[in-house]
């Protein structure tokens, strides 16, 4: 064998071909996931309508216990009714905006509050993870509190946050209610980030850490060049969870604090209308679903920018 031939005898060009084939089948898998996802939604809709068709009008109860829900139009409106209601005016007044406009406005407001909560939560979560990674004692001291923090019910802290916030005032800055809501959303959002980031920052094995030590570089460079890139596969799901948590936190806190203008408040207000206007309560629910999807989608798009750092996930 010649020099070059020997040198490259274990250079398998097949790996490249295999890579191309894998990405092609990967695309097919992605398509299938979309189709299956859409089928899932259709299935829920069909199940709803079929049950409405065959289920007992007055439901089926044994004593007080409801075994089968009622299927009349007030309890289970047709899916078409729900969407129709979205396209109708909000109120009977002649100058009323459309229902969907009201829902979009409320959703925008809530999404904005949730985004602020998400950003605060992610920042705090990352900071805590960094401190815990750097100082082992900090990890022992802080980690139990982080876990404990999530066992406190949200509705218990909401009034507290509101009351404390009301006392904050310096210069022109006045604490507003939406800030309390954002703070509570961040309270839910920081948790997965701090846990996920800590796990990610600690994920490089001894081999890599010692390699950086052998290069004679300190904690900071090891953090930037090794720990942070290595944490990306752990961080992305954490950020997505944080986004979902921020949305839930916002909606629940809007209700607990009594903040007007958001989708949470709208859910409560419209729920009372079910008696005469069965399609109405569903409008803000669709809004809430949309917020959740947008939040998760934005984080997924962020993930596309750091795809390179997720190579280790599929090929270890």
């Amino acid at each position, binding site marked *: 064998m010649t020099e070059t031939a020997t040198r*490259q005898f*274990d250079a398998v060009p097949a*790996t490249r071909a295999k890579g191309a084939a894998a990405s092609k089948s990967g695309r097919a898998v992605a398509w299938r996931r979309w189709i299956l996802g859409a089928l899932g939604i259709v299935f829920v809709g069909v199940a709803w309508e079929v049950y409405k068709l065959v289920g007992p009008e007055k439901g089926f109860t044994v004593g007080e216990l409801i075994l089968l829900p009622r299927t009349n139009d007030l309890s289970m409106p047709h899916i078409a009714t729900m969407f129709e209601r979205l396209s109708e005016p909000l109120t009977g007044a002649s100058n009323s905006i459309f229902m969907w406009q009201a829902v979009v406005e409320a959703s925008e407001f809530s999404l904005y509050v949730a985004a602020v909560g998400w950003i605060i939560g992610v920042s705090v979560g990352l900071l805590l993870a960094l401190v815990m990674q750097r100082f082992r004692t900090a990890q022992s001291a802080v980690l139990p509190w982080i876990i404990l923090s999530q066992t406190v019910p949200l509705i218990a802290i909401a009034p507290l946050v509101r009351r404390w916030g009301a006392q904050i005032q310096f210069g022109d800055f006045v604490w507003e209610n939406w800030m309390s809501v954002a703070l509570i959303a961040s309270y839910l959002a920081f948790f997965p980030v701090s846990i996920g980031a800590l796990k990610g920052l600690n994920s490089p094995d001894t*081999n890599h850490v010692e390699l950086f030590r052998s*290069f004679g570089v300190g904690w900071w460079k090891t953090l930037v*060049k*090794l720990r942070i890139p290595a944490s*990306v596969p752990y961080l992305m799901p954490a950020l997505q969870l944080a986004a979902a948590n921020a949305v839930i936190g916002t909606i629940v806190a809007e209700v607990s604090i009594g903040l007007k203008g958001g989708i949470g408040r709208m859910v409560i207000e419209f729920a009372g209308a079910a008696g005469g206007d069965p399609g109405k309560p569903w409008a803000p629910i669709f809004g809430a679903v949309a917020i959740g999807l947008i939040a998760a989608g934005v984080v997924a798009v962020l993930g596309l920018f750091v795809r*390179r750092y997720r*190579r280790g996930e599929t090929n270890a």
Partner: protein
Amino acid sequence: MTREDDKDMASEPTTTPAVIAENVGKVFPGKKGAQVTALEDIDLTVARGEFVSLIGPSGCGKSTLMRLIADLDQPTSGSLSVFGKSAKQARLDQEYGIAFQQAGLLPWRTVRRNIELPLELHKVGKAERAKRSKELLSLVGLTDFGDNFPDQLSGGMQQRVAIARSLAESPNLLLMDEPFGALDEMTREHMQGELAHICAETNAAVVFVTHSIPEAVFLSHRVVVLSPRPGRIRAIVDVGLGTSSERTDHLRESETFFAAVSEVREHLHGSPDAVPMGVDNR
């Protein structure tokens, strides 16, 4: 080659040796106050340009000794100097390059950027980095793979990238902890030939940890045989197969090679009493 003469360690008496270990010992604290003596009374000198293998059964402390030289651990007794400096200073001055059994490449960096990693960390300019990585890619025979990611490479190729990375800052000392341990036999022999070739070109001293006797003999000027619990030097075998550049595959068939293999094997398996403890007196 003109550098051939420098490689003869005896011809450089004025320069400090690559590694001097005197009376080095390492004790690990065990559970409940029990102590584990990993190394005891290690005296060893590695000359510039010399290839020294550390061989012995598992638990004999051969990796520990290499880690002490690398300043990844500190000796509990004795003294250790690397190019006349403390091990720590030598590490900070990047006097050595290191390669482990696992290639340890960063999966999010291309092969080229993996090789450039140490240079990048030490703020070497972009143009110079590119030049150096190009040289190294051709040295390890991976010129066409610079833009591939590690997961697209075979195990042997990944290990070559790791070796190229350890050579990035042209160190005078290479520390290798079973770098071919995870490779299959065929790739392994091939890589040994490659390493001999690389050593001939770079003229670096090498401390090479292995538990393969033929591997140690094929590559080394001297083979240090260690005995376990506590880790001591049992013998040092002078292989005498010539300079690294002369180490090609036909050497594996030679009488000298077999003789050295048997000698190392006897020291490894012989009872500790039968063989006098080897002490390096150079």
